[in-house]
């Protein structure tokens, strides 16, 4: 029973390409790949297009060597490698909502070397703490909407936008409800299951995802996991959908009860607050969402947000992971560690590459987890 509940999300996560191909066949619609979760998916969805997040496959590769200098993060290279290997050949187009320099390279190299009928660079502001960003992004979204209309040959009406906003907001609400079961003393889902649920939502039709979530929520209150919760951990840092790592840690008498990742809570934490001007409402949602470090300045809004998550989910310790060379996270990690530790939450830092040295990480995480055990009488 335990496995069945999340099986659908796992299946979508594992078979993302087959899903998208099937969706296209079923609906006759187009699929648009996006590179960062600042992509305003509501507008894409309102155009009748399936937004598909482009992610890596965690395999060593050399396809990207001629295209991206190796000092840029493994994720951007892994993403581009998927395109160069033709794994996303069903996409009709790609778009990026301006994010870090790393991911932008995956986008621009993809644009150049992988033929697409459509590509779009949305100049998502970095200065999300200035009130000037709201009207600016609203205008940029209007341009994006027009561009999508020209591409698809159909007008995106207010009704379409309202429907998309509702579907997306419902998805966010439902996932938050699922997350509430992670706050319990004995969480009813693992961190790995949560990750697969969230990441699959970035790849499948949200209406379908909502149906699966509703079904899950009916059964979840009765679920009992046949495992010890162990140490309640938080994981935060660069993009992380590494199944091997998450399952390894959760095999060590520990459970990830919350995270601050764009493959987790950061993706869906806030809703679009409806207003008459739909694009202004969508712009506000993306500006006000929990920030990516590349946009978190001049104030550090991430610190209180992360600490609140840690407290709400009764976190005992935090693992900070970072993709090698991921400058935005490298710039935040010292401040986050210090903030969490000052507030009584021990932290442990790990640096990832495209693949994970599981054996070494296991030893290190075990050592970290040992620090949570009650001291024994040595003498």
């Amino acid at each position, binding site marked *: 029973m335990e496995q069945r509940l999340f099986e659908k999300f796992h299946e979508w996560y594992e078979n993302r390409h087959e899903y998208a191909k099937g969706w296209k066949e079923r609906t006759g619609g187009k699929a648009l790949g996006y590179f960062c979760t600042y992509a305003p998916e509501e507008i894409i969805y309102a155009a009748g297009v399936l937004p598909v997040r482009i992610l890596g496959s965690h395999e060593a590769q050399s396809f990207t060597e001629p295209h991206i*200098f190796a000092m840029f993060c493994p994720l951007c290279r892994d993403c581009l490698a998927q395109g160069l290997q033709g794994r996303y050949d069903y996409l009709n187009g790609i778009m990026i909502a301006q994010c870090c320099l790393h991911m932008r*390279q995956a986008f621009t190299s993809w644009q150049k070397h992988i033929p697409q009928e459509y590509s779009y660079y949305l100049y998502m502001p970095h200065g999300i703490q200035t009130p000037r960003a709201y009207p600016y992004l609203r205008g940029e979204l209007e341009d994006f909407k027009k561009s999508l209309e020209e591409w698809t040959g159909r007008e995106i009406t207010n009704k379409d936008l309202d429907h998309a906003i509702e579907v997306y907001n419902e998805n966010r609400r439902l996932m938050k409800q699922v997350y509430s079961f992670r706050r319990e003393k004995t969480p009813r889902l693992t961190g790995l299951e949560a990750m697969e649920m969230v990441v699959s939502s970035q790849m499948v039709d949200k209406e379908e995802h909502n149906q699966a979530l509703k079904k899950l929520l009916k059964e979840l209150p009765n679920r009992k996991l046949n495992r010890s919760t162990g140490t309640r951990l938080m994981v935060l840092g660069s993009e992380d959908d590494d199944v091997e790592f998450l399952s390894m840690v959760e095999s060590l008498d520990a459970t990830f009860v919350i995270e601050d990742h764009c493959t987790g809570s950061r993706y869906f934490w806030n809703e679009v607050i409806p207003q008459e001007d739909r694009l202004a409402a969508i712009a506000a949602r993306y500006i006000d969402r929990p920030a990516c470090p590349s946009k978190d300045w001049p104030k550090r809004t991430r610190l209180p947000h992360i600490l609140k998550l840690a407290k709400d989910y009764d976190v005992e310790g935090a693992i900070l992971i970072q993709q090698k060379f991921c400058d935005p996270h490298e710039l935040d990690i010292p401040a986050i560690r210090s903030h969490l530790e000052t507030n009584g939450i021990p932290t442990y830092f790990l640096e990832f590459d495209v693949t994970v040295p599981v054996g070494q990480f296991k030893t290190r995480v075990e050592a970290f987890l040992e620090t949570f055990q009650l001291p024994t009488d040595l003498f």
Partner: protein
Amino acid sequence: MAENKYETKPLDCWNEAKQLRKDYYENFARARKNGGIRWAGGAWSFSAVPAGLGDDVYSLTGEPYGATVAFNKEFAEECHEAAEAKGYARDLCAYMRNYWGSILLDKFAWGGEWPKPDFLWTTHICCSHAKWYQVASELEGNVPFFCVDVSVGPYNERSERKLNYMVSQMMDGIEWMEKVTGREYDDEKLIQAVYNECRATSLWAEICTLNKTIPTPLDEKTMYSLYVLGTLMKHRKECADFYEKLRDEVKDRVANKIAAVGNERFRVMTDTQPPWAFLELWRYLQKYGVVSIGSLYTFGLIGIFEVKEDGTWGPRTTPQEQGIEIETREEALKTLAEWTLSRPEWQHFYSPELKSEMMKRIVKEWQVDGVMLHYNRGCEGLTIGIAENKLALKEAGIPVMHFEGNMGDEREFDLERTKAEVDAFLEILGAR
């Protein structure tokens, strides 16, 4: 060693450039004693804006400071170790780590204690820019910090909306500066600073354009000591005046065929910041009659260009040359925003192809024989897309090599290995 073919001599205004640079750092260090204001921020900050606070306002721009530290290997290492001990990764921007290290060590590269600024004022186009000063503010005890987001896309996609986004942030910034300094803002000083900046950055472009001549009147190693003034104080009258004097001297060198390198036989261009502690590599090239005429970096980091009627690159016509009179704060800021968006080194943040096109233009117009790309581990901002630039240059049939290093962290540069790579490239060019 290739034989000399051309007359060569040092620049007459060389010492003046050195003095301007020395005065810049000393004025900053002394500013507070004299009742003045000091601010710090990136070399791409809208430095004309704080000029409206008075004539006794001095700046410290982070990148040239980081390069100054890099030139001193021992101090740079101390800085890097201090930043690393604080938890900052060693693959972060090397200039930034030199700067933070100086704060942590409380040591100024030009002597004495770290001169804490009154406020921080910068722009954000690279992922590290705003974060650099966010951390600096924290390390310095919460120095007030304001950053203008300029990541609105390349110049060929500019629009009123994008300009208004930048201008409105700068308007807010001026109100903020008045609050943090307690000073009243003078729009007339802002307007003059904008004129100065347009003049200085157009003049630098004109100076670079003079290098199209054979023999080149300036070599890149010399240019490093000259373009730096634009990274320190592009908005100041003395910078524009100096570039005017330099332009006249370089014109004179062109007219009299005075070469930067007497044995010039081959012309190369580089890319991104050099490994500052190893500029001897540029002298090494000259042994074989190879001169670097510059790069998109030395030209376009500060220089503002435009396409002239004959289709070639030349200095951008300034507002004052067009007879435009700036009368209000808003007009001044809009002029500054529009002018700055055309900066060549801002274009590649959105597309490597824009940069590749500019590089191919330089190869053609500056009569370049080969390109040496510095895959610079110390700067993700200027290295973004560099592998695609290499592919594009190769596709265009241009001889190209790359060498790996770091502009500010000598631990990541291997001089002997690089020389061996350069040797192979020079053989391909026929220079060896």
